[in-house]
């Protein structure tokens, strides 16, 4: 660890901020190439139907229509997880949900493409559709044609210790059934892709993806092209949140159509299509039992979950594991068992959304703890404190925890919210609730098994006193470009604006696996740090030789090299770089990151959930409940998050605020709902009907940074992008209980549901409990 704070821990203007603020950043949808065609996908109006015939002739006959394809043109199945290739770019034999892609047309302009899509004649033979996971698991109707076990996409059962004995011997057993309604990401930017084939036959695909490398691999598979003939570029992205972390139909379609026509082809989803692409948070039903000793010690937890997966696997194999594996911290559990099942249904596929797989069970777990605190007459913060895992310990499922600032997080929200002074003294209808959580900083194992580094960065210094960073990382708004720039500027004494970051281009940049699992700060950060330090050595040694002093006396800060023992002696940084280049040759270095393989248990599935380092979070929410209308107003939320070390302060605060906002939105507003009575149509695939909170509906959020540096992170840094979401939802639930004495075990806490719960408990006008 460096003691310097020249850049690390400061507040930075993010890389590219001016262009974004002025509206001149060129997103994928802004790219235009000469001769570009516009494509449109024909989508199934049926939730489940056999495709009898796709007649493209009517579309092709229209003036301005250049090409059309159907599922049979792209028959190779794919999927983000190598063991579950259960999707086709366009449906081949069956459409599996309303909005499933069936054919695609390319035309001279978008209006013609829209007309052409309407002119494609698809003959369907409707099949029985299944919308409920339990019904799907019990049914003989098989939804996904590639499924290996009927409608069961994945099942995991793991036990650690004797849970039955622990529960039998407990002073208190809390049992509850919890339901999480599905939610979606709703990134501002809809998915878009543009493909072009150059004279040498190289296909370039610009796409709104969070995972250029995985997209690169899947394009090669489905298009049956060697990967060396494909280039994937990710332009600036307008938000991802997990909704762009696997390949989608449009990327295959524009590629195929570009190959067929020899012209650039572009496809931009409508907002409605974004809802059909989905991959949002799984609806989950969770049966939790937890046993406690009188002093609050958690003796055992038994968790059984059913995941409603939608029509495809997506990341579902991992989601199913995460729904149990990531529940084993931040508390020491005496014994633990979980059983999770994921079912196919005729709905848009679920996948990873910020806090993948563990946000739903975290809700259940933290409400269970709150119920126990009430039953045991313990302060809920104190109950959590008593059970907190220590730093450098192992969870019951054998994940190795490094640094932990969890207790500091609890203390921070306790202090900031005035918990001790205010809780229990608020008027009826107003309440405070607490919850805690943990999350991974990347996964130790990549999605496809390989021995190569997970991340790599190349840094080059030039004679004008600048640095170029070639980073595989996907900047999706989280600030990864700024993060690597801060590291290079720290190590080489440059100002942030002296650094050019080129990222997420498979031709120019080394491979990084993508922006998911909160992996980039730790993994790409470490790779970048190792490259930057190699260059720093070369530069300081060159300066040291010029001054005939030992290299350890040389510091690089504020665009100069200086002698720490003779502060008057300075050399401009460009001159230092020139001397180093003269001695050493081109100043370039690579760094990569390999994840540890010794931080998990030796059992099947034990590696899933294993991370180099874990972040910790605590939330306190303050709510006002209107007992006559059922409205829950989340007034203020305090979130303390242990990110190891904040490399760039405002970015961490932004992630805490954004995560908390998203969690509160899921708690009170959002529901990705299908109208089952009308054939499984989406209930309202628009941003008018899918209600995200506006600024006026957003609580005041206090972002409290806690730093427990982890030796495995760059400068001690861990993740901050997803962890600060988890406990926001149960904190709101627990605050509602504190306000009105009513438990809400099903999400979202919308006014009709809240009012019904209040009525059921006989709570009416103010004060009448």
């Amino acid at each position: 660890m460096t003691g310097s704070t020249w850049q690390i821990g400061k507040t930075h203007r993010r890389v590219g901020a001016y262009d974004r603020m002025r509206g001149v950043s060129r997103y994928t949808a802004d790219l235009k190439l000469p001769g570009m065609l516009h494509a449109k996908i024909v989508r199934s109006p049926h939730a489940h139907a056999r495709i009898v015939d796709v007649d493209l002739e009517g579309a092709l006959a229209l003036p301005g229509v250049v090409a059309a394809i159907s599922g049979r043109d792209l028959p190779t199945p794919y999927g983000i997880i190598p063991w579950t290739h259960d999707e086709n770019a366009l449906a081949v034999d069956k459409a599996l949900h309303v909005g499933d892609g069936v054919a695609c047309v390319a035309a001279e302009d978008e209006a013609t493409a829209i007309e052409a899509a309407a002119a494609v004649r698809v003959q369907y033979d409707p099949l029985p559709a299944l919308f409920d996971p339990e019904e799907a698991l019990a049914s003989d109707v098989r939804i996904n044609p590639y499924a290996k076990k009927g409608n069961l996409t994945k099942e995991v059962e793991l036990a650690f210790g004797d849970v039955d004995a622990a529960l039998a011997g407990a002073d208190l057993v809390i049992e509850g059934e919890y339901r999480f309604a599905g939610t979606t990401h709703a990134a501002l930017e809809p998915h878009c892709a543009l493909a072009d084939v150059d004279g040498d036959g190289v296909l370039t695909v610009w796409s709104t993806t969070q995972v250029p490398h995985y997209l690169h691999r899947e394009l090669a598979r489905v298009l049956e092209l060697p990967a060396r003939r494909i280039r994937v570029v990710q332009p600036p992205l307008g938000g991802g949140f997990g909704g762009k972390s696997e390949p989608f139909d449009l990327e295959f379609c524009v590629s195929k159509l570009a190959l067929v026509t020899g012209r650039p082809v572009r496809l931009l989803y409508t907002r409605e299509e974004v809802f059909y692409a989905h991959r949002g948070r799984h609806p989950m039903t969770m049966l939790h039992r937890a046993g406690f000793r009188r002093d609050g010690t958690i003796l055992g937890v038994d968790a059984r979950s059913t995941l409603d997966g939608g029509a495809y696997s997506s990341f579902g194999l991992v989601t199913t594991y995460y729904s149990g594996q990531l529940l084993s911290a931040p508390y020491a559990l005496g014994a633990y068992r979980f059983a999770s099942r994921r079912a196919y249904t005729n709905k848009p596929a679920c996948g990873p959304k910020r806090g993948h797989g563990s946000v739903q069970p975290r809700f259940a777990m933290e409400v269970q703890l709150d119920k126990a605190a009430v039953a045991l007459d313990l302060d809920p913060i104190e109950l959590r404190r008593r059970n907190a895992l220590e730093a450098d310990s192992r969870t019951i499922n054998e994940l190795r925890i490094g640094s932990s600032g969890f207790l500091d997080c609890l203390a921070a929200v306790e202090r900031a919210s005035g918990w001790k002074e205010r809780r229990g003294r608020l008027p009826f209808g107003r309440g405070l609730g607490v919850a805690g959580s943990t999350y991974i900083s990347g996964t130790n194992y990549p999605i496809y098994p390989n021995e190569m580094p997970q991340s790599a960065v190349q840094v080059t210094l030039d004679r004008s006193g600048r640095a170029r960073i070639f980073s595989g990382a996907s900047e999706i708004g989280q600030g990864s470009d700024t993060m690597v720039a801060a590291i290079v500027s720290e190590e080489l004494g440059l100002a942030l604006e002296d650094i050019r970051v080129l990222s997420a281009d498979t031709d120019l940049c080394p491979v990084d696996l993508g922006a998911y699992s909160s992996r980039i700060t730790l993994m790409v950060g470490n790779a970048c740090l190792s490259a930057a330090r190699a260059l720093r050595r070369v530069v300081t040694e060159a300066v040291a030789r010029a001054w005939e002093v030992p290299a350890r006396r040389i510091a690089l800060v504020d665009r100069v090299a200086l002698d720490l023992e003779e502060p008057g002696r300075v050399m401009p940084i460009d001159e230092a770089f020139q001397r180093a280049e003269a001695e050493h040759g081109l100043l370039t270095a690579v760094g990569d990151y390999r994840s540890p393989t010794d931080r998990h248990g030796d059992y099947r599935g034990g590696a899933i959930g294993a991370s180099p380092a874990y972040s910790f979070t605590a939330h306190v929410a303050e709510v006002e409940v209107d007992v006559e209308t059922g409205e829950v107003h989340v007034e203020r939320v305090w979130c303390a998050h242990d990110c190891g070390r904040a490399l760039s302060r405002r970015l961490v605060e932004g992630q805490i605020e954004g995560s908390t906002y998203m969690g509160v939105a899921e708690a009170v507003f959002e529901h990705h709902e299908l109208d089952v009575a009308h054939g499984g149509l989406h209930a309202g695939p628009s941003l008018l009907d899918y209600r995200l909170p506006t600024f006026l509906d957003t609580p005041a959020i206090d972002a409290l940074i806690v730093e427990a540096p982890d030796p495995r992170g760059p400068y001690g840094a861990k993740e901050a992008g997803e962890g600060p979401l988890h406990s926001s939802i149960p904190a709101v639930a627990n605050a509602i209980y504190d306000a009105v004495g009513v438990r809400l075990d099903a999400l979202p806490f919308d006014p009709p549901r809240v009012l019904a719960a209040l009525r059921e408990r006989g709570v009416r006008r103010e004060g009448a409990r």
Partner: protein
Amino acid sequence: MRLAPFELLVPASLDEAFEALARGGVPIAGGTDLLPTLKQRRWRPERLVSLHRLAVLQAEHVEGEGLVLGALRSLAEVASSPLVAEHAPMVAQAAAAGASPQLREMGTLGGNLNLDPRCRYVNQSQFWRGALGGCLKSEGDVCHVVPSGKRCVAAMSSDLAPALIALDASVTLASMRGARTLRLDDYYRADGTANTTRAPDELLIAVRVPFATGPRRTTYVKWRPRKSIDFPLVALAIRVDLAEAGVSRVCVVANVLGAKPKVVGRLDRFAGRALDAALAAEVAEVVFEQCKPLPNVPWDPAHRRELHRVLTRRALEELARR
């Protein structure tokens, strides 16, 4: 989503506008309601008639014992007008509650009064409606809200209509055939496929709000899940006229029930009563009794109905405290 091509006419005078409408043109003012329906391919007019050059529709003045507002006044202008604040504060309140700041800059008084009634089965894309099989108001012949229903029950969702009806406002329409003035309440029909009596060649010119003849307290209550953007899910315009003996008249107009704003009946009996909490509770029961929301907009109808009771009572309690 993309707009289908159309011809845009920009008349410089009312006569030119009337002629364009008579030839089948469709009027467009701010476009905030019309353009989304065109993008959804709900219909495909060949010719739109922009009203933005018709300065006469921008009127705002006192005329006799009333306030005249041109149909082209933006919601933002209505919301911030000193004249409206003085003579019809509930109208300013309703205008300020509409949509979001950007949409209020574009949306107009006339557009809001002519808002196309909304329904969860109608305000959707062409693809979505096709998958549904259409309905009375779109490409089909069934109603998904009232399955046996023969008349469309799409919900009139204008914020201004209930406020203006509660103030006994009238509207003036004109065409090449002449002009006519009628009570705003009579302007609307209980049919979601065509909920006004406006003929296709007619233009809404202005609204006239008569001044109060005595002490009056009013409020417009809009309930929606979010504090901005959303259309109302409950809309209640409440007017209480006062005399020395107490209340002389209570008027409640509820919107977002069916295609026509509902003037709540049987409120005469409250004349002579004091404006107090007891009155508030009793009026709230009458409103609850008469206002029966349907699942036409995406929200639980039972919850909406309960809100009618709670919000009416609270609004009247607040008026009593003023």
